[in-house]
C-alpha cells in the first residue's frame, strides 16, 4: 500500500460560477493555471509532484457545461457531463449506443461519477515513465525511456510512434472519432469547432501534447452530428482486469449497410498509438463490399499493416486485428474464423 504522505502542494483555487467567467479566467490565467473538470487525471500529477501549478481553475460550479441536449438532429454534450451521465443518458443510448457503452467501461463507478467527458478526451497519456517524472521527450527531454532494450512497454504503441511510444488511453475518444464528433472550444470571445479526428495529436505533430488544446482554451462541448444515427455500432475494450484498467486496445465502429453490402464505415482503434487511429484504409476497403468472411478477414489484415511492436507489446498486433474483425462483423468471430 502506498504511503499516504500526499498533501498536494499548495495552489490558488479559482472557481468560476458561470461559463463566461470560466472562459475569461482560463484566458487571463493561461500562463499559470491548470483547468480541472473532475480532476481524476489532474490530481494524481499534483499528488505525485511530477507536475506543479500556481493555480487551479476548478469547473465544478459551472452548471452550464453539464448535460446532453439535442442539436440539429444530433446531440451536444457539455464538457462537464460526467461519464455516468453519458453512459445513462437515454438520448446517447438511443442514438449513439457505442459512446454510452464506452463511457460505462471507463475505470470504476466512482471515477465515472466524477470524471467528465471533456476530461476523458483531454487526459494525458499513462506511460509510466512519463508519469513517474522521467525527463523523456514528452516531458521536454531527449530520450524515450519506454523504447530502450530493457524498457517495459507492454502497454505502448504499435503504430505511428515517432520518438515517443506513449498511447492515447481514452475509452470515449475512439467512438467520438468514429461518429465524426466535433469539439467546441472557446478562447475569449472566439469559438472554434474542431473535428474529433483533428483534436487528438500524435508525437509527429507535437510530442508534448495529446490534443490541440492550448493554454487559454476551454473545451465547452462535444457535438455529435446526426450523420451516423441509425448505423450499426460496435465498441469493445480489452483490459487486464474488468474494472479500473485502461484499455490495452479498444475499438469503435459505425457501419451502414444495405442489402448485405457495406455502404460506408468508420473504424477507429484506441491505445495502439498516441491518438485514436481512424483506419481509413480499412474503411475504404470495406465500402461497397459484401459483409462476408473474406471481407472481415481482409479488414483485420489491412488494419495492422505497418504495425511495429516493441519488445513486450507484440500481443497487441493480433489483438487489434481480431478486434477490428469483430467490429466489422458486429460481434465475436465464429470459432472457425
Amino acid at each position, binding site marked *: 500500500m502506498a504511503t499516504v504522505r500526499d498533501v498536494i502542494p499548495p*495552489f490558488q*483555487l*479559482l472557481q468560476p460560477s458561470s461559463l463566461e467567467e470560466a472562459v*475569461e479566467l482560463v484566458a487571463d490565467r493561461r500562463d499559470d493555471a491548470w483547468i480541472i473538470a473532475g480532476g481524476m487525471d489532474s*490530481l494524481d500529477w499534483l499528488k505525485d509532484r511530477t507536475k506543479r501549478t500556481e493555480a*487551479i481553475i476548478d469547473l465544478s460550479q459551472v452548471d452550464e457545461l453539464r448535460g446532453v441536449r439535442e442539436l440539429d438532429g444530433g446531440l451536444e454534450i457539455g464538457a462537464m457531463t460526467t461519464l455516468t451521465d453519458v453512459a445513462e443518458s437515454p438520448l446517447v443510448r438511443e442514438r449513439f449506443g457505442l459512446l454510452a457503452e464506452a463511457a460505462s467501461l471507463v475505470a470504476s*463507478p*466512482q471515477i465515472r461519477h466524477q470524471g467528465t467527458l471533456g476530461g476523458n478526451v483531454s487526459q494525458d497519456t499513462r506511460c509510466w515513465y512519463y508519469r513517474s517524472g522521467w525527463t523523456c521527450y514528452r516531458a521536454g527531454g531527449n530520450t524515450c525511456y519506454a523504447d530502450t532494450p530493457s524498457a517495459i512497454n507492454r502497454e505502448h504503441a504499435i503504430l505511428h510512434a515517432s520518438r515517443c511510444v506513449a498511447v492515447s488511453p481514452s475509452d470515449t475518444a475512439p467512438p467520438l472519432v468514429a461518429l465524426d464528433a466535433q469539439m467546441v472550444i472557446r478562447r475569449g470571445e472566439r469559438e472554434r469547432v474542431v473535428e474529433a479526428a483533428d483534436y487528438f495529436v500524435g508525437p509527429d505533430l507535437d510530442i508534448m501534447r495529446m490534443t490541440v488544446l492550448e493554454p487559454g482554451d476551454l473545451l465547452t462541448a462535444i457535438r455529435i452530428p446526426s450523420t451516423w444515427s441509425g448505423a450499426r455500432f460496435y465498441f469493445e475494450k480489452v483490459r487486464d482486469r474488468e474494472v479500473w484498467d485502461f484499455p490495452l486496445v479498444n475499438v469503435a465502429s459505425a457501419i451502414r449497410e444495405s442489402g448485405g453490402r457495406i455502404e460506408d464505415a468508420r473504424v477507429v482503434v484506441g491505445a495502439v498509438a498516441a491518438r485514436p487511429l481512424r483506419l481509413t484504409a480499412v474503411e475504404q476497403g470495406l465500402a461497397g463490399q459484401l459483409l462476408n468472411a473474406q471481407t472481415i478477414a481482409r479488414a483485420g489484415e489491412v488494419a495492422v499493416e505497418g504495425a511495429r511492436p516493441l519488445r513486450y507489446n507484440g500481443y497487441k498486433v493480433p489483438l487489434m486485428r481480431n478486434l477490428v474483425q469483430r467490429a466489422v462483423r458486429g460481434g465475436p468471430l465464429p470459432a472457425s474464423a
Partner: protein
Amino acid sequence: MAQEDPHSAGSEPTGSESTGVSRRTFIKGVIAGGVAVSSAAYLFRNSPLLTGGSARAGTVERLVGLTVNGQTRRVDVAPHETLAQTLRYKLGLTGTKLGCDRAECGACTVLVGDVPRYACSVLTHSVRTERITTIEGLAAPDGTLHPVQQGVVEEQGFQCAYCMSGFVMSAVGFLRKNPNPTREQLAHGVSGNLCRCQDYDKILTALERGAELSREVARG
C-alpha cells in the same frame, strides 16, 4: 461565493489575520500584478494548514459551511485539501479510510449527494455545496443501524474490515438507484472497491442481505 465575507461567519476565521493581508489590499495587489480584477472574486485563501507553510499573500475565503451527515459545520479548508483530509483530519470522521490516495481502492468512498465518490480524489472546495454522507452518518440518531450495516453484522462479511466503510457507502449509493439488484449487478455496483483480504464472496453475501433488509425497511 464571491460576496462571502469570512468575517460574517460568526466565528473568527483562523489564520486570516495572521497574514496581515486584508481583502482590500489583496485586490489592489492583484490589479498591480496585472491580472484582471474579475479574477479576484474567485480566489480562495491558500492555507498553511496542512503543509505547515505560511499562507501566500493574496488569498481569500477558505471558511466553508460543509454539510456532512445532515449537519452543517463551519470548517477551514485549504484550497488543495481533499475531502478525505477534511473529513478525517478536520472533522474527526475517521470512518472514511485512506488506502491508496489515488482513486484505485475505494476505501475512502463517501456519498456526495446520493453518489459514491472517492473522497481522496476530490477537492473539498469542489463539493462544498453538496450534502456529504460518511459511514458515521448512516445509523439513525437512536443508534439503529442502516440496513446495509445490519446486513454486514448479520453475515459477518468482512475480515480486517479496513475496506468495509467504503464498500458499505458504495452499496448504499448503488441501492438508492437500484433497490432490487441481482448478485451480479450488486457486484458491478461495488466494483470500484477492493478488499485486500479477498473475501468478495462473503462481502457480497453481506451486502445482498443489506439490500434485502433495505427493501424490508422501505416496505415498512
